[in-house]
């Protein structure tokens, strides 16, 4: 602390050369003030809090490796004949984009490694964003004051998918071309304006000659800039809100218990960047990703078996695969005023994704409206202590996963030796009943865990020691919990259903009735945490004393 100084102390002269340089810089940029403010920022320590960091670091890796790739990639769709080192494609007609991607893979020193770093980091980026969002949802971290930051996070998820998809299409290989063709089909299925949008995007009929360079501009300029902007907003809000913490002794909505950013946490976070980079680099070095040379140049006629998008687009592809073309005699295609309306493309492409993102963005306000809870929350919920929210989350997660699995239906069929049709029928059924089953099971599991917690808080831990009392009764001795552990089991909020209340005109509105019904749905079968009185009572009458007195009698009688 003494090495840093401010402009208010001009008399100070640092003793060492390094100190003098630091002081010179500090007097001009005021770094010490910033450092003092940020260095003292406290972060709670928990492994599940680090997925956001993983996402941030993956993004940094993406910027670095992506910049390398731009040196060698040429986003042109002009025709050329391949003349690189990969003989199975020698002299094959292809686009310059594909040819330069092959050159990066085979003729640029370290190019294949960098391509694989970039692609693995992209998969990891979206995966860590998703896990981060799941963590935030299931622990209730989206509640006041963090609702808007949840929305920013949702936008980041969409942007990361957009970044991934635009990048996936760039090499102009057969696989990515097939993916673009599906997107083209989805766009064209939009009523009335679909064809116009498609022609606008592709500069004419698919595939045209401009789409790769357009996607390239989006991929390296617009989308990363937006992601960066959103990350800045996201982190700024984290600083403003402070970090949430898991419940524990001494932790409440008014404090943050953890370690200051500097120096321990900063060192850890800095080191963690290199760990993430190292893991990505190892994956890139030893495991191939997107072997574009296998797929060959894009040509609208061939479609390869096993064509899938990268994992984060998989659920939308899966929804398309699940949609039946006809059900019995019922067709999903209509011609209205000369316009073809193709519901069997439009419905699966837009409705499930629309549903998932609508609920995702609205959820903080839905829960806020139902609970009428306007307090700030900085202490997280354990997922079991919010059974209905956890169940809703698992239902959504299951809905997503069924569609996700459907994107690999052909591989499920070949690798588990089952019929592709059966896989599709099962997944179609699960598409509707899977979320319902997941909701019921999760809610019951959460309630059962809460009851177990309550039982342990009241009666202590089972020791397995069986004692026979003088009058012949057998009891098992329970060991009482220490206060820290008990706090974790009893220190949570358990809201009760809020009945409908009249508004200022004395009228119970229909909306308010709906809210009350939802509140009942959320909280009616709650398990209340053990209250101090209950704990007292449990200790008063419990067998503990009987055992002790019985043992005392036993020693007396000897």
């Amino acid at each position: 602390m003494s090495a840093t100084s401010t402009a208010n102390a001009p008399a100070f002269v640092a003793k060492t050369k390094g100190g003098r340089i630091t002081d010179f810089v500090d007097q001009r940029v005021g770094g010490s003030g910033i450092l003092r403010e940020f260095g003292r920022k406290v972060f709670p320590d928990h492994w599940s809090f680090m997925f956001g960091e993983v996402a941030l670091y993956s993004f940094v890796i993406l910027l670095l490796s992506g910049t390398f790739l731009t040196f060698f990639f040429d986003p042109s769709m002009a025709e050329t004949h391949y003349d690189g080192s990969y003989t199975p494609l020698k002299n094959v007609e292809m686009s310059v984009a594909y040819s330069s991607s092959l050159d990066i893979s085979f003729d640029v020193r370290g190019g294949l490694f960098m391509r694989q770093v970039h692609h693995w980091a992209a998969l990891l980026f979206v995966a860590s964003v998703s896990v981060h969002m799941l963590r935030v949802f299931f622990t209730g971290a989206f509640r006041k004051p963090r609702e808007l930051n949840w929305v920013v996070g949702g936008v980041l998820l969409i942007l990361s998918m957009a970044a991934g998809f635009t990048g996936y299409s760039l090499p102009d290989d057969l696989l990515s071309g097939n993916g673009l063709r599906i997107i083209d089909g989805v766009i064209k299925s939009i009523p009335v304006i679909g064809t116009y949008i498609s022609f606008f995007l592709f500069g004419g009929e698919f595939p045209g000659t401009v789409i790769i360079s357009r996607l390239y501009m989006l991929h390296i300029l617009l989308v990363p800039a937006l992601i960066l902007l959103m990350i800045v907003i996201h982190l700024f809000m984290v600083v403003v809100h402070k970090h949430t913490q898991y419940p524990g002794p001494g932790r409440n909505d008014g404090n943050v218990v953890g370690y200051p950013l500097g120096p321990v946490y900063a060192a850890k976070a800095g080191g963690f960047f290199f760990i993430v980079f190292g893991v990505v680099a190892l994956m890139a070095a030893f495991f191939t990703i997107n072997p574009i040379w296998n797929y060959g140049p894009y040509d609208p006629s061939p479609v390869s078996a096993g064509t899938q998008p990268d994992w984060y687009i998989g659920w939308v592809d899966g929804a398309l695969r699940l949609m039946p073309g006809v059900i019995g005699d019922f067709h999903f295609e209509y011609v209205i005023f000369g316009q073809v309306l193709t519901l069997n493309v439009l419905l699966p492409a837009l409705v499930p994704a629309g549903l998932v993102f609508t609920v995702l963005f609205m959820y903080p306000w839905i829960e806020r409206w139902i609970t009428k809870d306007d307090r700030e929350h900085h202490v997280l919920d354990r997922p079991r202590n919010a059974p209905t929210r956890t169940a809703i989350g698992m239902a959504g997660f299951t809905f997503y996963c069924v569609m996700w699995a459907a994107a690999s239906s052909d591989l499920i069929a070949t690798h588990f030796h089952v019929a592709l049709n059966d896989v599709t029928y099962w997944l179609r059924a699960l598409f509707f009943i899977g979320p319902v089953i997941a909701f019921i099971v999760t809610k019951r599991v959460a309630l059962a865990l809460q009851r177990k917690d309550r039982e342990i808080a009241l009666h202590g831990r089972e020791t397995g020691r069986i004692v026979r009392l003088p009058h012949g009764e057998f009891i098992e001795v329970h060991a009482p919990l220490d206060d820290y552990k008990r706090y974790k089991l009893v220190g949570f909020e358990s809201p009760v259903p809020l009945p409908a209340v009249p508004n200022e005109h004395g009228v119970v509105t229909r909306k308010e009735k709906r809210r009350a019904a939802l509140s009942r749905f959320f909280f009616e079968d709650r398990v209340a945490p053990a209250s101090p009185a209950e704990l007292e009572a449990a200790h008063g009458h419990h067998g503990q004393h009987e055992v002790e007195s019985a043992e005392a009698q036993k020693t007396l009688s000897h």
Partner: protein
Amino acid sequence: MKALSQKRRHPLAAIALLLMGLLLTGGLYAVATTVNEAKASTTSFSANDTEEGGKLFAANCATCHGMGASGTKDGPSLVGVGAAAVDFQVGTGRMPMQMNGPQAYKKPAQFNDEQTHQLSAYVASLGPGPSIPEEGLLDAQGNAAEGGELFRVNCAMCHNAAAAGGALTRGKFAPALADVSEKHIYEAMVTGPQNMPVFNDANVTPEGKRDIITFLKQIEANGSPGGADLGALGPVSEGLFVWIAGLGVIIAFTIWLTSRTS
């Protein structure tokens, strides 16, 4: 010449002439009808092969394919499928079939090379069909790039662009093509086993087939330049890998990083 002209009035001359005429037309017809078939073989079958093959057929195949390979409700007629079909089906172990199902699975061959040869001889004797391809087409020394283009246009929609296989409807599938011998690849193309269509010599020329085999063998020999290929299954195995291995390792690190202080 003199002897021939002297015997032209011989009582059997007309019969000989008739015989010659029949042989000529029959031969021409045979050439004309099989010109489009992948007949590239010089493999010759002896009468003994055919006879032994017939015995093997009666003992092992006739249950489903019928005596004389004329077919039953359980198995199709094999008249005219040619030696190539037998060599493929028996040589890869698909026949005799393990069980009835949408498609026969590859398994260790039940007959040795000699027996397979004899069975082929027998079935080939029943009617003309594609014969076992000659060595020159199986050397995998063609043009891999041309073969790759042919493969992507004709084969990749079922077998996958990297020949990793794919699913078809109702339990049928296109198998992965790694470790399939050159001869069997060629035979599969000309006979169209299981659910595969026939690619006769008008569809894909013998030279084209040689190129396809070259392509398949070359990508197999090249291995995976980018490291372990994760089954060459594309984005699904990549996604599974990043979720399970990538994220798994990172979670292990996060637990390690936060374990000392909490």
